[in-house]
């Protein structure tokens, strides 16, 4: 018990440190311009916190739900599906900020529907088939996104930012309001999912065991997929598709705080938030131009994925 408190203390310390750096460090080194800190860096910090938290949380849920430690919103194509929806939203021009999150949600639902049905065979999901289906769907959606972003003559940078994630979104009052509303709903969904933490533990024992423990498998998976897709889509609508956070963070959290979903979900959220804040700090300061954030997360995430793949095959 004591050990856990020390870990929490260190996490808190790290969070404070990262928040300090994110707010006070920028293009001109350490600066204290009030407008920039409050209106540019603070919204960005909040975005990073919510994006990282929600993606890691969603990853943890998906891993349990699909009994597969290799799952993550990015690998399963949910993020690409959402990015596809955002791209579709761009066609609405002026109302982009309004329609993009909605289209993103629909896109992510379509993606998870395809992936799940492609990988579900004779009442069982095959671990590797699921991942392959996800990768294929991910490719498919990325190319379609690219295609009609090119058709609507968006610059290449924007497409890359959408497919690989970037937190440099320009907020105004309208988009900030939509952002707040979407995240308010997300928080409600997070709480609802957290209420199912006990069930999620059972899910990870396999479909049949979960059912024998009194879980209505079809109903529960549908609800959880729906809610999780919303969490992912909301974040993709504002930050693009970010890879590997949803995969690595739940594993790291299990290592630190155990596999029980009661701890796993909240700590995944915190650790995910920390990671994206740190990754964004790197992405926006390491070069004179901003890097897509997936560049940073993939750099650390890909080796870890390969390690997991070896362990699980």
């Amino acid at each position, binding site marked *: 018990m004591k050990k856990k408190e020390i870990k929490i203390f260190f996490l808190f310390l790290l969070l404070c440190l990262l928040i300090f750096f994110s707010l006070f460090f920028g293009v001109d080194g350490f600066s204290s311009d009030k407008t920039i800190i409050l209106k*540019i860096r603070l919204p960005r910090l909040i975005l990073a916190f919510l994006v990282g938290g929600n993606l890691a949380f969603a990853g943890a849920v998906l891993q349990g739900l699909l009994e597969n430690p290799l799952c993550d919103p990015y690998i399963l194509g949910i993020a690409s599906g959402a990015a596809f929806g955002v791209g579709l939203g761009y066609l609405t021009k002026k109302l982009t900020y309004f329609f993009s999150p909605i289209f993103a949600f629909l896109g992510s639902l379509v993606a998870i529907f395809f992936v799940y049905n492609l990988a579900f065979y004779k009442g069982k999901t095959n671990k590797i088939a699921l991942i392959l289906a996800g990768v294929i769907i991910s490719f498919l959606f990325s190319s379609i996104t690219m295609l009609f972003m090119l058709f609507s003559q968006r610059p290449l940078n924007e497409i890359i930012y959408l497919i690989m994630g970037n937190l440099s979104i320009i907020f105004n*009052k309208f988009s900030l309001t939509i952002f707040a509303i979407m995240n308010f709903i997300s928080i409600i969904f997070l709480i609802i999912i957290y209420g199912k933490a006990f069930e999620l533990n059972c899910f990870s024992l396999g479909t049949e065991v979960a059912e024998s423990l009194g879980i209505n498998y079809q109903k529960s998976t549908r609800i959880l997929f729906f809610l999780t897709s919303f969490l992912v889509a909301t974040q993709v609508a504002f930050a693009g598709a970010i890879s590997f956070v949803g995969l690595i963070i739940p594993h790291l959290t299990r290592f630190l705080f155990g596999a029980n979903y009661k701890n796993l979900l909240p700590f995944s959220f915190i650790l995910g938030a920390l990671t994206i804040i740190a990754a964004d700090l790197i992405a926006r300061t390491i070069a004179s131009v901003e890097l897509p954030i997936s560049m940073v997360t993939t750099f650390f995430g890909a080796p870890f994925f390969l390690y997991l793949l070896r362990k699980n095959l």
Partner: protein
Amino acid sequence: MRKALFFILFLLLCSQPPKDRKIRAVSLSPAVTEIIFTLKCEDYLVGNTIYCDYPEKAKEIYKVGDMINPSIEKIVKLKPSIVFLTYPLQKNIDEKLKALNIKTFNSSPQSLKEMFEEIIKIGEIFNKKERAEKLVDSLREELNKVKRFNKRLKVYIEINANPPITIGKNSFLNDLLEFIGLENIFADKLADYPAVKQEEIILKNPDYIIILHPEGKAKDISSRLGYEKIKAVKSGKIIDNLDPNYFLRNSPRVIEGIKILSRLLNDEKKGN
């Protein structure tokens, strides 16, 4: 009989303007297309891109594709004697065409001076050097009439909103701004079209913001979080009604663009 036929054929061939008929030009750059039309050499232009939309007639010319991925096959089929293209965007296309023994001409002027030189070179290619020199002279004359600013005003040019993309030191537009005496706040960036950070825009605090993309309207810019601190936003000096093609294409039309800009800024000055 046969001999007679050959003779007639020979005569027919000879009666064609022998030199000119050999020129078959393909333009992969909308700017060069405009220059060719200004030089009235459009009859030699057998192919261009879907982005070549000025003047109206340029749209009717056979399209070989877009600027990034034109069809090499279509270009080869046209049997061009010369292909105009622009760097760095079409560097790889240039290499491919050269490998196929197709002559290319790279037109990527970074300043007004370079553009004038290129107009003359293009004129030479079409054997219209004189016409080109005349054109350049008249353009120069018009330029000299343009009012310049003595006070160095700082300008932020935005050519894309999300992410914000602007123009760097080596871009053509930067030279135009220099010419009329405005200071590009991102003249320290080496890339032609660098993506910049929002905090940089706010910190550099421009006097004017010029929007060169179709979606941005002045009120969109001023509603952005944190931008209210910028001088240009405070004093409402955001210009959003310009046709980007007058500024981003290194063609004779930029002279018009400069005139528009100069008039606009002068008017605003009086207004204040």
